[in-house]
């Protein structure tokens, strides 16, 4: 397999293994198109148009409707933990511009978004309650990784900022050392070690706990999950991170392998991770 193809999109580096020239172009085009639609930091993005019309019914593109439906389904399947309606909370925490431009901020924590955060989708019509601001970045990035993998004709791998999907086996390096072979699906890591900043002297990060409306307090620094797709892995990793000490058990109940890196102390894996490795050995 030749050199990987790299480019920047959605605020992170995208790495593609096993793509031909035309496939590389198609993948880059896909990421750029999705970024234009879903970025909070592109002023004329569809996401910003929808957010500025909260409280009114708007017609959205089929891509937008599909992503929002996935995000709402993720919210349903994680019991509300991984929610697409936390844009206002992210901005209140200070993440209101591209992360590269984000510095330490002396302002106080902004007001938390509206409650309840209702969003209804029917076909391509969308109605969000007043004050709700959508942030679909998590779902969009991982789903785009999965969609990009479908553009490859043969064995390959697509990674966006460390969330990846594979076709064929790939050996993947893990946070804080170690490696594992991903035979099918995707692997994603969620954590508070990146995308963090200071606001009024308090550490903030991008993983918002919907129960508090603020940056999540979790014993884990990073949670890595192997899912049936990059989207599955990303949703499960976020939910396990937000659940804190209950994260490993929550993943085990769904037989999803998870690996937990605490802020201090040794790395632990859940039963599903251990049995997956033992079964394959």
């Amino acid at each position, binding site marked *: 397999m030749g050199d990987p193809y790299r480019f920047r999109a959605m605020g992170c580096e995208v790495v593609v293994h096993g793509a031909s020239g035309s496939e590389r172009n198609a993948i880059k085009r896909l990421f750029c198109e999705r970024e234009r639609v879903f970025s909070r930091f592109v002023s004329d993005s569809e996401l910003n148009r929808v957010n500025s019309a909260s409280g009114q019914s708007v017609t959205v593109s089929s891509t937008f409707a599909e992503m929002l439906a996935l995000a709402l389904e993720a919210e349903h399947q994680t019991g509300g933990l991984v929610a697409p309606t936390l844009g206002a909370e992210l901005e209140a925490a200070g993440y209101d511009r591209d992360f590269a431009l984000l510095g330490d901020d002396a302002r106080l924590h902004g007001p938390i978004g509206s409650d309840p955060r209702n969003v209804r989708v029917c076909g391509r019509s969308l109605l969000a309650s007043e004050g709700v601001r959508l942030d679909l970045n998590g779902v969009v990035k991982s789903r785009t990784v999965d969609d990009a993998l479908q553009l490859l004709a043969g064995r390959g791998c697509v990674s966006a900022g460390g969330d990846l999907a594979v076709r064929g086996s790939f050996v993947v390096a893990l946070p804080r050392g170690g490696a594992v072979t991903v035979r099918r*699906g995707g692997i994603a890591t969620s954590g508070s070690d990146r995308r963090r900043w200071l606001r009024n002297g308090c550490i903030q990060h991008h993983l918002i706990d919907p129960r508090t409306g603020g940056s999540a307090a979790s014993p884990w620094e990073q949670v890595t999950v192997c899912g049936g797709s990059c989207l599955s892995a990303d949703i499960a990793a976020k939910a396990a991170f937000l659940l804190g000490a209950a994260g490993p058990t929550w993943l085990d109940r769904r037989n999803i392998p998870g690996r937990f890196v605490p802020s201090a102390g040794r790395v632990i894996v859940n039963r599903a991770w251990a049995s997956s490795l033992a079964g394959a050995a």
Partner: protein
Amino acid sequence: MSRAKRTRAMKRKQRVQIPAHAQPPEARPEGERSRRGAAVHRARIAKVAVTAAAALSAAAAMGLARITYAGHQKHVTPPLAIPQPLYAVVRQNLLQAGILAPATAPPSIATSSS
């Protein structure tokens, strides 16, 4: 006809009594008046019964038409949405597990929080 016969016939006619219904009420006998009153009462009851039956039939016909006729709205219109059973069938399980194995070579790619 002879004069005597005509005279006898006229006397017979004069002897025939006037029928009861042709007589004024005060001239009718008591039994006759009570039979007529009962008949009027029965007729009134029959009119009320027929009117009530017609109203009931009309109401029943309207109800039946509402239930059976295809063009009529039979229930409160539900909002347009995917039926729940179909939704359950096509719903994507977003929490599926992937397949892992021990590493057998140096890693070619890394996962990290982004």
